[in-house]
């Protein structure tokens, strides 16, 4: 990239070929007002706020779309420009309903901020009072078209980052409005994934989220904490807004980041409502069909009393949520495994994880990291989705797949036993039963060398053959058959090694810190269905519903201790003793994410009342049992599947017959 020197407002600035005036100005701390521009989204220069003067040019240039050229002399703050900008703002205010006094976004609004910044103390143009509709059809997202300035940020984020492309424009001129699907109300849209990204980027009060409005402006909040969303293994970085002890709003960090600053429908709605959920505040002991409050001393003594005989008879088990942080998992592992010498320890997703681990094993032995950062999907040119439903399993991965396919023009091959989760954008769609899956994977790997290839497979084969950066998305369902996981990895090996960090595979782990769990609490086998227990210790984060397999085991166990921050049902009904723990927003620690990095979770709202941290509880319980809690000895999650060999060194392995 050749360097370009230009002068902005009399200051010499350096930029590179291809940079826009706005990019160079920002890099050199020159402020140019913008409205439709947003980092990471395609600049369209539609609002004209960023107009600048260039010496020798009669027309004004939009800084966000005009590339810099050598020797350019740019002025950004002349009286003429400031008058034009104010004029644009007045026209926007005159066009639709921009009366701030009855708008939920007043104070957070970028249009308002710019108008004030430009000293707009009156509007010289006639107000149009045009009556657009207010689309309240969606239960979560409200769209008041009367407040829209047609900046198209929502449309761009929806298509470029979420890949849903639900939103677009309809009609022309004055009557132009944002619409969903083909002129549908948002609530009736078939493509909307209800992620709320449109509201996050909306500069005015047009698209708002019912859960967030009137709970506090961003500027009114007591604190804004950067943390991660612990609901799924993608671990999106988020900013949580706190007001009077409540999480009132969560937002993705930046549209310029790999994930596009998006959140999914899980994180967007679940997280801000969590501070309002019913908490378990003090230890409780079952008394008939209900519970009575107890002191920590009494509750832990009872737990110890019931645990001791069960330990002796080998009928004590522990189920630990994999949504816990690395540090918490280490404490639990050190308590149950190292201190209490229990072997019946597992996570809620143990079976699924064991399936993946078993399938990864041959490649782990070769020292190859068997998966890659999920955002690499955005760089790939062919995506093979194997029995996965990412929109359910990890919705942001589904966004990556859609964006890569629609924007990046990657080819999409879906192989599944059921419905195609990417209906309409797949280039090849293969419907196979579990038994046929292995043969198909082998056929795809061998490129038809092993014999005649069925007609419908040919298309998929062509796509994989022609791809330079193919990537495989493994559904959680596949983990039921480890041989298929291995075969899928074999296929990835055969397709080459386009990414440096590991094989081009994205496994749909279901729990957010699955990698941390592998090192700590995940057991060697499924003991849960093996026989009834006398004692079962359950550590839940209360964030995800427990599966029936685990709940059944709890029903059968004689004595159940449930550790949970929230009064979640049916989990709490299973308990004989309930122990409170801090909720996600009161904890800090690390998660190893599908994106391939170890991310930090921070305390958003400090814990209050009688809460004790997990480390303290387990230490006190150990003391009741006459033991001392061992120091946590497990390695952090990033050491699981650490790459010792480059992915291009991976060898194809042979697998057993799939029954």
């Amino acid at each position, binding site marked *: 990239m050749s360097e370009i020197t230009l002068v902005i407002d009399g200051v010499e600035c350096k930029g590179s070929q291809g940079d826009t005036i706005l990019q160079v100005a920002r890099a050199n701390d020159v402020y140019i007002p913008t409205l439709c521009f947003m980092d990471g989204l395609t600049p369209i220069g539609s609002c004209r706020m960023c107009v600048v003067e260039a010496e020798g040019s009669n027309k004004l240039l939009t800084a966000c779309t005009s590339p810099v050229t050598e020797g350019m002399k740019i002025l950004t703050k002349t009286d003429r420009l400031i008058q034009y900008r104010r004029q644009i703002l007045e026209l926007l*205010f005159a066009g639709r*309903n921009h*009366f*701030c*006094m*009855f*708008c939920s976004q*007043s*104070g957070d609004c970028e249009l*308002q901020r710019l*108008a*004030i*910044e*430009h*000293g707009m*103390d*009156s*509007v010289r143009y*006639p*107000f149009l*009072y045009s*009556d657009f509709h207010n689309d309240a059809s969606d239960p979560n997202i409200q769209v008041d078209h009367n407040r829209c300035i047609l900046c198209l940020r929502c449309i761009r984020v929806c298509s470029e980052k979420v890949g849903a492309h639900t939103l677009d424009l309809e009609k022309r001129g004055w009557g132009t409005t944002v619409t969903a699907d083909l002129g549908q109300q948002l609530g009736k849209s078939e493509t909307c994934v209800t992620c709320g990204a449109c509201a996050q980027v909306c500069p005015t009060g047009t698209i708002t989220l019912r859960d967030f409005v009137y709970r506090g402006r961003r500027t009114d909040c007591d604190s804004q904490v950067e943390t991660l969303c612990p609901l799924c293994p993608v671990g999106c970085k988020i900013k949580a807004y706190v007001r009077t002890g409540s999480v009132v709003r969560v937002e993705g960090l930046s549209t310029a980041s790999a994930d596009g600053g998006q959140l999914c429908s899980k994180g967007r709605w679940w997280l801000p409502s969590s501070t309002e959920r019913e908490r378990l505040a003090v230890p409780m002991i079952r008394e008939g069909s209900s519970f009575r409050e107890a002191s920590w001393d009494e509750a832990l003594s009872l737990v110890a009393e019931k645990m001791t005989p069960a330990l002796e008879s080998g009928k004590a088990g522990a189920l630990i949520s994999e949504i816990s942080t690395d540090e918490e998992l280490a404490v639990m592992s050190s308590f149950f495994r190292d201190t209490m010498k229990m072997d019946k320890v597992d996570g809620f997703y143990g079976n699924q994880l064991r399936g993946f681990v078993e399938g990864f094993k041959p490649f782990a032995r070769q020292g190859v990291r068997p998966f890659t950062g999920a955002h690499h999907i955005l760089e790939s040119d062919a995506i093979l989705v194997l029995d996965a439903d990412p929109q359910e399993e990890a919705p942001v991965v589904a966004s990556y797949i859609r964006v890569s396919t629609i924007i990046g023009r990657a080819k999409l091959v879906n192989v599944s036993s059921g419905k195609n989760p990417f209906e309409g954008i797949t280039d090849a769609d293969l419907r196979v039963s579990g038994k046929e899956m292995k043969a198909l994977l082998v056929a795809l790997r061998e490129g038809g060398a092993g014999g005649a290839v069925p007609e419908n497979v040919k298309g998929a084969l062509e796509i994989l053959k022609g791809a330079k950066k193919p990537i495989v998305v493994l559904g959680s369902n596949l983990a039921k058959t480890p041989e298929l996981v291995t075969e899928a990895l074999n296929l990835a090996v055969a397709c080459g090694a386009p990414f440096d960090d590991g094989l081009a595979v994205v496994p749909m782990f279901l729990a957010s810190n699955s990698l941390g769990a592998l090192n700590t609490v995940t057991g060697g086998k499924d003991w849960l269905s093996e026989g009834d227990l006398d004692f079962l210790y359950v550590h839940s984060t209360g964030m995800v519903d427990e599966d029936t397999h685990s709940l059944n085991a709890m029903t059968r166990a004689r004595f159940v201790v449930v550790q949970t921050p929230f009064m979640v049902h049916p989990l709490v009904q299973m308990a004989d003793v309930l122990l409170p723990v801090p909720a996600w927003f009161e904890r800090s620690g690390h998660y190893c994410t599908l994106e391939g990095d170890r991310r930090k979770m921070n305390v958003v709202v400090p814990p209050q009342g009688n809460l004790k941290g997990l480390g303290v509880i387990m230490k006190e319980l150990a003391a009741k049992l006459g033991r001392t809690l061992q120091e946590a000895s497990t390695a952090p999650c990033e050491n699981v599947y650490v790459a010792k060999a480059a992915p291009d060194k991976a060898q194809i392995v042979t697998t057993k017959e799939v029954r």
Partner: protein
Amino acid sequence: MAKPKVASVWLEACAGCHMSFLDIDERIVDLIGKVDFTATPITDFKEIPEVEVGVIEGALGNEEELHIAKELRSKCKILIAWGDCAVFGGINCMRNFMPAEKVLEEGYVHTATTVNPDGVIPCDEVPALLPQAIPVDRAVKVDVYVPGCPPEADVIYYVFSEILEGRIPTVPTDVMRYD
């Protein structure tokens, strides 16, 4: 020289701007020493006298308000539009999205708490509605705009102080607000 005279009127608005003016607190004593408040919503002047500074709070929604605005304009040298209603039209503009007849019908016949079986809409006793509620500057020339709902007391005080110094002020951007 005699103290400059000020007159203020409360048109289609909630009186919040005048309340906000009273929030200048003890500074009002100082201000009264420098200016004469004549006709205001809190004094009992039947006629607006000739004044140096006229202040309008509120939008113009009916014939009477339009008349008062024109009268005040003709009797003052500097006219200030106080608050969002006077500057932009404010909350009164919510009715501009439908015809004035519909507004009257809604207000006098259809609202849940109204008992008006004959559907009588007052027309002789009250001033006629304008087709739309309009900002003051749509009817008369405005010299100083003070947006805000309401404008803060400090801003109101600043505007008076500047006028007393012989300047025509604009509200500085760091204290301007629309809500």
